[in-house]
């Protein structure tokens, strides 16, 4: 940034700062609101008295949540899918990106594989056939229904593949001279060098697992097997959709604070890791976009 250190601050700079501040606060507004709602008293919330700050401050909604074992069941399912799914995504992304990064001269079938996976990424038979495959594999109501269909995050594979391609050839050539075979090359040379990129795509796949609700909704029949987002969807969102008898309000007001508490707790893992891994989140955007 070519900014001279002693540049005088002009009035327009202040205006711009305030504008940016307003935009940023707008981003935070709904989050602040839901946290306040969760910390408010039940009747105050039902009466619509809560704006930005808690009214009748209380932790009661969170205490009440502790007794909701289905919430924790769903939380557990989500943790399970994040761990299992995350590991599977991590391993398969690396295993696939590495060979696909090789030139045709080194790996003749490379283009065939790339075309196949790109094709599956862009064209599919839709929801019904996919559902039937999962059903016929007897994956319904198992954790594998949530982790196996998405086992290969194709977009991440392509991102990592391009990253591997851009790695300097000198290092791999030196390793070859030292007698490294392809597996050694992958594990000891290419992967360690690509660690930031690998961390970034793994992070994104973990966040996707945490946020997924649809597969949990259609692939799990037993209530004890649904992941957290599906649980929240059924608890908070579904009643809104189905109870359209009274036109004025679609919300079960007495549950407002309880729902808010559950929503906040569902957000917490993302909010907590975000500041620490912010570097990786930001890298993730430009990893695959601006190309020369």
């Amino acid at each position, binding site marked *: 940034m070519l900014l001279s250190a002693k540049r005088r601050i002009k009035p*327009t*700079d202040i205006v*711009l*700062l305030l504008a940016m501040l307003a*935009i*940023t606060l*707008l*981003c935070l507004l*709904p989050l602040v609101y839901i946290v306040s709602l969760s910390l408010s008293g039940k009747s105050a919330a039902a009466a619509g008295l809560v*704006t930005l700050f808690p009214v009748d401050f209380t932790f009661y909604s969170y205490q009440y949540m502790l007794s909701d074992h289905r919430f924790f069941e769903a939380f557990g399912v989500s943790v399970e899918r994040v761990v299992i799914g995350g590991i599977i995504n991590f391993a398969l992304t690396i*295993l*696939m990106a*590495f*060979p696909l990064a090789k030139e045709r001269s080194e790996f003749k079938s490379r283009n065939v*594989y790339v075309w*196949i996976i*790109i094709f*599956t990424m*862009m*064209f*599919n*038979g*839709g*929801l*019904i*056939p*996919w559902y*039937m*495959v999962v059903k016929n594999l007897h994956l319904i109501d198992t954790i594998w229904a949530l982790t*196996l269909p998405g*086992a*290969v995050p194709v977009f991440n*594979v*392509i991102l990592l593949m*391009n990253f591997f391609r851009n790695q300097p050839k000198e290092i791999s050539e030196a390793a070859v001279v030292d007698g490294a075979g392809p*597996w050694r090359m992958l594990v000891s040379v290419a992967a360690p060098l690509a660690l930031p990129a690998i961390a970034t795509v793994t992070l994104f796949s973990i*966040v996707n697992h945490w*946020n*997924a*609700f649809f597969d949990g909704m259609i692939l799990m029949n037993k209530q004890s097997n649904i992941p957290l*987002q599906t649980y929240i969807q059924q608890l*908070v*969102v579904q009643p*809104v*959709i189905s109870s*359209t008898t009274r036109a*004025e*309000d*679609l*919300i079960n007001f007495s549950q*407002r604070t309880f729902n808010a508490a559950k*929503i906040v707790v*569902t*957000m917490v893992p*993302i909010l907590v890791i975000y500041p620490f891994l912010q570097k990786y989140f*930001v890298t993730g*955007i*430009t990893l*695959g976009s601006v*190309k020369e």
Partner: protein
Amino acid sequence: MGKKSHSLHYHLMLAPGMAFIIVFGIVPLFGIAIAFQDFIPVKGITGSRWVGFDNFVYMFQLDDSKRILFNTLYISILKMIMQIIVPVGTALLLHELVFPRMKKWFQTIIYLPHFLSWVILAGILTDMLSAQGLVNKVVQALFGETVFFLGSNFWFPIVVVLSDVWKEFGFNAIIFLAALTAINPSLYEAAEIDGAGRLRKMWSVTLPGIMPTIVLVTTLNIGQVLNAGFDQIYNLYNPLVYQSGDIIDTYVYRIGLVQYQFGLATAVGSLKSLVGFILIFISYRLAAKYANYRIF
């Protein structure tokens, strides 16, 4: 130096992943046959009657088809326009800021909503937009009556577009910001020497500088125009707003998994996928040709 072929090992590395891709990506393609059948689950694909293009003909005759196509395109295109204007504006704003540490904080915060799920956001949004919610408090103070945002066919698409912008503008702004910082600084200096003020510099140096990025992003978005945001709309809509909020994906979901019209659902879904595929293909070719953007 012996050039031993490592191909076998590469095939081995690809094997597990390819197995999954074949099972969950290729095998379902055979299920497209359902679109040409009067499909009954008990009989399966082999036992159900073939009806040729009947499902497709029926689809074109349905009133619903025009409605969902219109809604999908309307919402998608509005989103695309706003997802250029707002992020570019924000990126320009961030770029002009002279406080480096605050810049980083702003970026961190505006990027955050991208990582929250639509289930969470819908939960918050439906509360905020309810009759007693935050938004209606303001509306009531200003206009004296409340607006039923999520039940109105006029407001629903607006809510959908605006909330999606709120969620994603940070992500896109950072892409544009990266493009902004890549603009050659000497261009700015030359403009300064020629007497250009802040606005003139923005018009003549900055905007042309990021125009390639804007064009690239827009081109790549063309392929996604039929995806108007299932996760978002599914969590926000209700029967009152099917008229304006029902998109192709929500419709396919309802007629397929709720009403069990498998043949029709597969027909609509496959056709959407095909058109989408063609659009993506075209958009990638355009991007490769005019912007040297290659995904592989």
